[in-house]
């Protein structure tokens, strides 16, 4: 599986402002690449540029089969555009029947007669909406309309499918169901897809890889696990909802373990760092273990054992989110079972521990 698309030094401007600046980004054949980022980070612009709907101020895109953005003539543009299909946040259906909507792309490609009918039927079947074929598109509900929009895009069997927050306009339960269905469908079809969303949890479910776009620039590209456990910048960490971001000053480093000071507390972290340098640390809340007695923690190999007190407890489904004061604020996730066994309550004094390797160092500048 090679790359079917690679972006080189792309820059887009709207009215003189740079809205997108991507030095490089590749899409592998058959993968679902989620582009995530806050609103206004340039995600939709990126999709439109790839889909040839908007021209970049500079830069180039290498597509499959030797197509190159900067070398496209009028004909090449149309030919390449016909190998892609995009679904927008709003379904944007034409005021025609559902059947005519799904047939639109096929008509544009001059596919007619039995072949067209077969492909429309097939696309409606993929989304399980054969029953809607005769309906007038504007009369559909939001969920139905978005399924028609997806069927319309899939009917042309795109080499690259572009989805721009396709579920954002749907209500919560519909979104949940659609998300699961579409994730399954994309895996089954093996369609290469760029999926834009501002919802990082949605991206986790849909994507093979994530690209985090913030303020028009790509901050990080990686698997969901990489991005969530080792954010490449403070902005990424904030965007994916990371807790326990701590400012630290480095002390001594010995044999791959560094001592750092957070507030007045000394912690040990993996890796060696120049003495006196400042670091941004992230400690995953699920890796912070709580003990009522110091003795209970004795068997643990964790380097860091700190006394603290419970500030606040919130139930989040199967987990308790426990905010602690250990000389600096620290959050821990404990299962409901162990939380109840420990009889957690506000003001409780206890010990928390985490391994040196549970501390992730976020590069301060990118």
């Amino acid at each position, binding site marked *: 599986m090679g790359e079917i698309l690679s972006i080189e030094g792309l820059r887009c401007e709207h009215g003189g402002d740079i809205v997108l600046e991507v030095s490089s980004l590749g899409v592998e054949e058959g993968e679902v690449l989620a582009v995530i980022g806050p609103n206004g980070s340039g995600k939709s612009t990126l999709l*439109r540029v790839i*889909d*040839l*709907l908007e021209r970049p101020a500079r830069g180039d895109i290498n597509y499959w089969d030797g197509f190159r953005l900067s070398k496209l003539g009028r004909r090449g543009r*149309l030919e390449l*555009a*016909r190998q*892609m*299909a*995009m679904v*927008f946040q*709003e379904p*944007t259906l*034409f*005021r*025609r029947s559902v059947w005519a909507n799904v047939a*639109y*792309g096929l008509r*544009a*490609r001059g596919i007619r007669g039995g072949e067209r009918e077969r492909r429309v039927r097939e696309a409606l079947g993929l989304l399980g909406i054969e029953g809607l074929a005769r309906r007038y598109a*504007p*009369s*559909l*509900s*939001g*969920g139905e*309309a978005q399924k028609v929009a997806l069927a*319309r*895009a899939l009917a*042309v069997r795109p080499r690259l499918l*572009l989805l721009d927050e396709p579920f954002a306009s*749907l*209500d919560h*339960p*519909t979104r949940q169901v659609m998300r699961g269905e579409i994730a399954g469908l994309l895996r089954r079809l093996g369609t290469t897809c760029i999926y834009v969303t501002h919802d990082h949890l949605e991206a986790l479910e849909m994507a093979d890889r994530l690209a985090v776009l913030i303020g028009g620039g790509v901050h990080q590209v990686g698997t969901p696990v990489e991005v969530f456990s080792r954010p490449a910048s403070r902005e990424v960490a904030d965007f994916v909802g990371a807790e326990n971001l701590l400012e630290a000053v480095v002390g001594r480093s010995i044999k791959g373990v560094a001592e750092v000071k957070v507030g007045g507390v000394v912690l040990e972290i993996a890796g060696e760092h120049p003495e006196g340098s400042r670091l941004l640390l992230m400690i995953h809340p699920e890796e912070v273990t709580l003990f009522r007695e110091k003795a209970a923690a004795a068997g643990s190999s964790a380097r860091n054992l700190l006394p603290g007190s419970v500030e606040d407890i919130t139930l989040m489904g199967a987990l308790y989110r426990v905010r602690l004061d250990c000389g600096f604020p620290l959050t821990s996730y404990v299962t409901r079972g162990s939380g109840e066994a420990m009889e957690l309550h506000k003001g409780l004094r206890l010990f928390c521990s985490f391994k040196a390797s549970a501390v992730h160092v976020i590069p301060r500048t990118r």
Partner: protein
Amino acid sequence: MGEIWEGFKQAVSLIVHLDPYVMRVTIFTLYVCGLATVIGMFIGIPLGSWLAFARFPGRRALIVLVNAGMALPPVVVGLFVYIFLRRNGPLGFLRWLYTPKAVILAEVVLATPLIAGIVLSALQDADPRLRWQALSLGASRPRMYATLLAENRATLLAAVIAGFGGVISEVGAAMMVGGNLMLSGRPYTRTLTTATVQATGQGEPVTAIALGIILLSITLILIAAMTAVQQKGRSPGGFMAAVYRKSRSARG
């Protein structure tokens, strides 16, 4: 007052009894204006579509020209067409002056900017996502324009009605290049408006009123049709239906 009422009664009687002169002028007018509108559509719709999205130097100037064309005084159009068609004019060799062709040409010149201008603004106001969606599904430029126009069919219809309404009600251009002529007892270049002017001038108020009533009826029918198209889906019922659809879509 009684004179006017009497004239009105006789005029209605002319219409009801399908007076041959009144009928022939009406039919000729519908033919000339209908044909001019159709030709105006064939030029104005592509022109408006092209101007809506094409990028080329001088585009803005052309748009100004089209917009100005929407408010062209018919007499000025008549004057220009006359200058072009007269014997020494650039198009004098056609020998069209004082023929139905000259009238149709003048009406096309009047109708085309009206149609092009409305198409242009409708396409520019169209949801850009619709344009993107059509292109993204592989539509060529002409297909994309056609799709946008189909989505705005009410506006398109309004453009055509406006074009037809504009040419059927004008008198200046038709008079100047047509000459209000009859040939072997049939209208040659005589339209409802020019005939009304003449009948009034010759002291035949009854005929003039009959022609005026017909002209007014045609205009009223056009305006009613336009209003119906425009207000479609905006009636209170339509509004509530839209709200209902919205709430339904929110629930999925």
